[in-house]
Every structure is written in C-alpha cells, then in structure tokens.
C-alpha cells in the first residue's frame, strides 16, 4: 500500500475560530491525506507530542489571535528537541507578510493567509513531502 501523507491540524492558542482549520482538514482528507485533528486550545507541547505519536509528515497550525510569533518558534524548537526536525511545519491565519517572512527565515514552512485556495495548500504539502 502506498504511504499516506499524514497531517496534524491543530489550533494552538486561545482563540476559537476553527472555520479555517476545519475547512483545511476536510480539504486535505478529500485530497487523500490522513488528517489528525486535535481541536482547540493546544499548547506547543501538546502539538509536538501529538505529532510525535502520530508520526506525521506535516503539522498545520491555524492562528488568528496574533500569537504566531510566539507559537511557531516554540513549536519549531520543540520539534528539534524531540528529533522531529524532518516534519514540515506550516500553517495559516491572520499573519502579516513581514512576520511570515521572519518565520520562514527561522525554518517554518510557507504560511497562508485568508482566502488561499485549498488546492494551493494541498499542492504545497504534496510537493514538500515528496522531497
């Protein structure tokens, strides 16, 4: 059987706007991926532990509360600490371009703003995981 792309979709932080996370989760499922959805209010520690147990290829975080400059670097360093440095960390939300650029320089993958077609995200994940 072919390897399935496994993706953890999580909502870290305190905000509860899960429309984007759920739409993405459903779209990735419909693109043939296995999506582990962990729900709201996840701490970076919870996200990374779930990623480890589920042996995912990709972590997608949805952040609309403005906490991205705290959450992404923290998840990044925990991934490195636990030996999960090959997991692609991506995500989306309301994130100013200059913050996206700064996070990409830290090693975070591409981040997507509101209105991004899900096909673009699917394409990005497929091509990143294939490499």
């Amino acid at each position, binding site marked *: 059987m072919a390897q399935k792309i496994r993706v953890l979709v999580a909502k870290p*932080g*305190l*905000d*509860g*706007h*899960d*429309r984007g996370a*759920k*739409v993405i*989760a*459903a*779209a990735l499922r419909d693109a043939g991926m296995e999506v582990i*959805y962990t*729900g*709201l209010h996840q*701490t970076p520690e919870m996200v990374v532990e779930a990623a480890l147990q589920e042996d995912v290829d990709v972590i997608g975080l949805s952040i*609309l*509360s*403005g*906490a991205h*400059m*705290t*959450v992404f670097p923290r998840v990044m360093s925990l991934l490195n600490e636990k030996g999960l440095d090959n997991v692609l960390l991506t995500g989306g939300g*309301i*994130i*100013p*371009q*200059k913050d996206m650029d700064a996070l990409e320089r830290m090693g975070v993958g591409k981040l997507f*703003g*509101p*209105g*991004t*077609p*899900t*096909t673009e995200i699917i394409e990005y994940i497929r091509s990143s995981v294939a490499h």
Partner: protein
Amino acid sequence: MSKSVGASCKPKGMRLKIESKRKERQFNTISGEPVKDIYTPKDVGELDYDRDLGQPGKFPYTRGVYDTMYRGQLWTMRQFSGFASAKESNERYHYLLNHGQTGLSVAFDMPTIMGYDSDHPRSQGEVGRCGVAISSLADMEVLFDGIPLDKVSTSMTINGPAAMLWAFYICVGEKQGVPSRELRGTIQNDILKEYIAQKSWIFPPQPSMRIITDIMAYAADHVPKWNTISISGYHIREAGSTAAQELAFTLADGFAYVEAGMAAGMDVDVFAPRLSFFFNSHLDFFEEIAKYRAARRIWAKRMKEKYKAKDPRSLLMRFHTQTAGCSLTAQQPENNIVRTAFEALAAVLGGTQSLHTNSMDETHALPSAKAAKIALRTQQIIAYESGAANTIDPLAGSYFVESLTNKLEAQAEEYFEKIEALGGVVKAIEKGFFQREIANAAYRYQKNIEESKQIIVGVNDFVEGDESIDIPILSIDSEIEEEQVKRVKKLKSERDNGAVKATLEELRRAAESTDNVIPCILNATRAYATLGEICDVLRGVFGLYREPPIF
C-alpha cells in the same frame, strides 16, 4: 444546494468571456439559494400589508422598529476596537470620538476573553494581540480614563467572563461618580453562540445560563439602561453558516434566553426589552436586507404569540450589524473597502440600529489608524451622501425582497422545528447539530469558490500576478506584554489581599448556592480581585466545558 454544471469545466488559469460564463452559471445567492430571472406579484401573492409588514414602529415591525427610523436618528456608528494595553486603546477611543464616532465598542484580547490574567502561562504571546488586555478594575480605569461614562454608550464584546468585565465597568462608573442606573451600553454575553460557533467558552452550558439570568435580574434592578445580551449571529456567519442558518440559529438562541429568564421566575417584560441582537452583513445584498426584515418579523410574532409579551419594547428586535470579516480577502486588500461599503449599505437598508464597518487590512492584522478611519468614513458617506437614509425601508414592496423575506422566514421556521425535535438549543449543541450544519456549509462555500461557482474578485478571478501589499500594517510592540504582565503582578502584590480572599470566598459560596452572583463579583472587583482569580473561583464550582468533536 443545487447542482451547478459547466462552470467547473473551465480550464484552470483561463478566463472565458463573461457572456458565455453567465449563460452557464446557476444564479444563486451567496448562501446557495437559487434566484429566478424575474420576480412578479405572483411571488408575493399572499402578502398582506398590515399583517406581514405593518408601518415602521408597528407590529410586526418588518419595516423597522421605530416610526421615524433614520429620519429621527441615524444609526450609531460604532467601530469595534481595542488592542495592546489599556493605555493605547484609550488613546484610540479618544481619537475615534474626536472623529465623530458616537459609541464605543471594546475588543478584548484572547486571555481576557477566556478569563485568564495577562500573567497566566496560557496568555503568553496573546496579551494585547487581538484586543485590549484587561485583567482587573485597575486596567479598566485606564481604558476609560477621561471618557465620561454618562455621556457615551459602550459595547463590550465579551461572553464567558461577561459578568466580570461588566462589573469592572460598573465600578469605573462608581469611581467617576456615575450611578449604575445611568450607564448605557451592551455586553455581548451570548454564550450559546460560543458553543455553536465562536468557541470562546469557559463554563458548561447550565451554569453559564445561570450567570446570564443573574445578570438579567441584576440589570433589571440596578442597570436598567443596559443591554444585557447581544444575541449574536455574527460569529455564526463568520464560522461559515448560510444566511438562513444565521437567522434561525440566532433567533433560536434568543428564544432560549427568553425561556431561561422565564424559568428563573422573571416576567418576560422585565428582561426582554433589554435583549438586543447582532447580525453579520455579508456580500449578497438583497439576501442580507431580507434577513434583517425577516428577523424583526419572526421575533415580534413569537414574543407576542408564544411568550405572551405585553410591553411593546419586548417585541422590538433592535440590532447591531458588522460587515462580514470573512468576506474580506488578503489579496488586493483595497477592494475590501468596496465590499464593506456594499455590506454596510445592506445593513442600513435593512434598518440596523448600529453599525461597524471593517477595515480593509483586517485579513493581515488589526486595523491601522488610517484603515479604521476609511471604514468610519464609509458609514458617513452612506449616511450623508448616498440618500439611502432618507426614507424608511425603501425596498419594501419589491417582489424580490418580499419573496426572499418570506423564504428566509420559512427556512428559519423549519430549523426551529428541527431544534425543538432535538430537545432545544442546549441539547442540540450537545449533539453537535449546529456545529455540523455550519461546518458543512463552510466547506460547501469554500468548494464553490474553488470550483469558481462563486467568483471572488482577486481570489479566483481577476487575479493579479504581482501581489505585493502596499498598505500600512499595524504592528503590536511585544514589550506591551511584558509591561502588562508587570502591571498585573504589581497589583497583586500591592492590594489588600485579605479583602481579595474574603470577597472571593463570598463569591464561591454564592456560586454554590442559588444566590445572584453579581453583587459578589462587584465586591471582589472593588477589592481589585483580578479577572483570572474571579473566574478561577467559578471554574472550581462550575467546571470547564469540553466540546464534542464535530466535522
């Protein structure tokens, strides 16, 4: 949802001629309801003017809740704002009031919304990010510094800890010498839609409903000009619902609060006049106008016929409107000014009592001062230049609008029956009914966009190659968090901690009994107990809500 053919066959990246595209297209509202090519008297055959529409200010209020509407008084231009620390937000409020805004609307940060102090570990990285950080009365005093609370009306978007922030506000009034009877404003305090859509809850539904009825009872006696609940469809729509779902679920929530108040032993006319509503204004112009008209009619009819309200004020659906944040695009953000203008116009033609217009940059960050000003100017242009406010309910009698109004009402009634069959709103929440309906609608909407059945300018058509954004973006200084954390820690060490402990203990006892908790929350506030401390006491008594997983 009807099946669409043709449009999805469009080769990727290729623009067909508009004419041929229009022939293939199915014409639907943005909610997916089919629209006919023309509407005639046959579509509104049964319409009876006095029974179904009535004069403005007369039952069933379809045409508006007041007899003079905007000729008497324009809607309140109420821009929702708040960010960083109380001090920065206070400066923004002064700025907005000086530019002609007529009411304040406070946005809180996520820790405040979830009932955590700024120095709580879970608050890290979120302090002052998407609203203002308020951890105690001390912060609230700074937020309203120099703003006389007897002169402004203030709306606070707060739900889980609504009772606490309301108490902070009442105590600021006390400090200013403004008695609580004089205070005007709104707390959102609509916990049902939190479980349904917005997901910012603290306690489980039952104790949450009890706090809400405590607030309604306390307001009736002590803060009579306050709107105790703003029953909100806004977030239901933002979470991806259709217009009919927004209408139906919001009104169902409203009726659930009415029933809770009556079950708590209050006369319906004691609290119902203080209930207000909060709707979204999305892109589909006529569907939105019809939604507001249907909402007024359904509310008035049910309040009168089912709940036997006698006071005419109990029958009036007064509502605030905010243009749809979810309709804004990150691409070509200047276009958002235009979207917002149409949405705002729909709200005005639908008879809103107050209005927030979104800023063009909100898909990137909190609004910059300039973007916020343009949003306010949009309302002023509608009010003073467009002529839209010159006459009342100008679209009444339009075959299309009346037919849509009837249809939305019928769809809402269908949902009410389904909710009833599930055992009411709280049971339906526990069964995940609303959550599932909304998640499905959101996914359908997204698919329609991706299959180009729904065109969004700059997203799936009229896309520009170079997408560089050249509007200013507000950035929040990360030192704000450090300073705010210091402030809270300082307060905790300097206040009379004996008094804090005693008032919190008193609150715990009230929460465990059936006594009204509001007087105890006020006492704790006066002693400068923090938001987190007060919420912790109640978390201990009531427990925490856990959401059923729904896809």
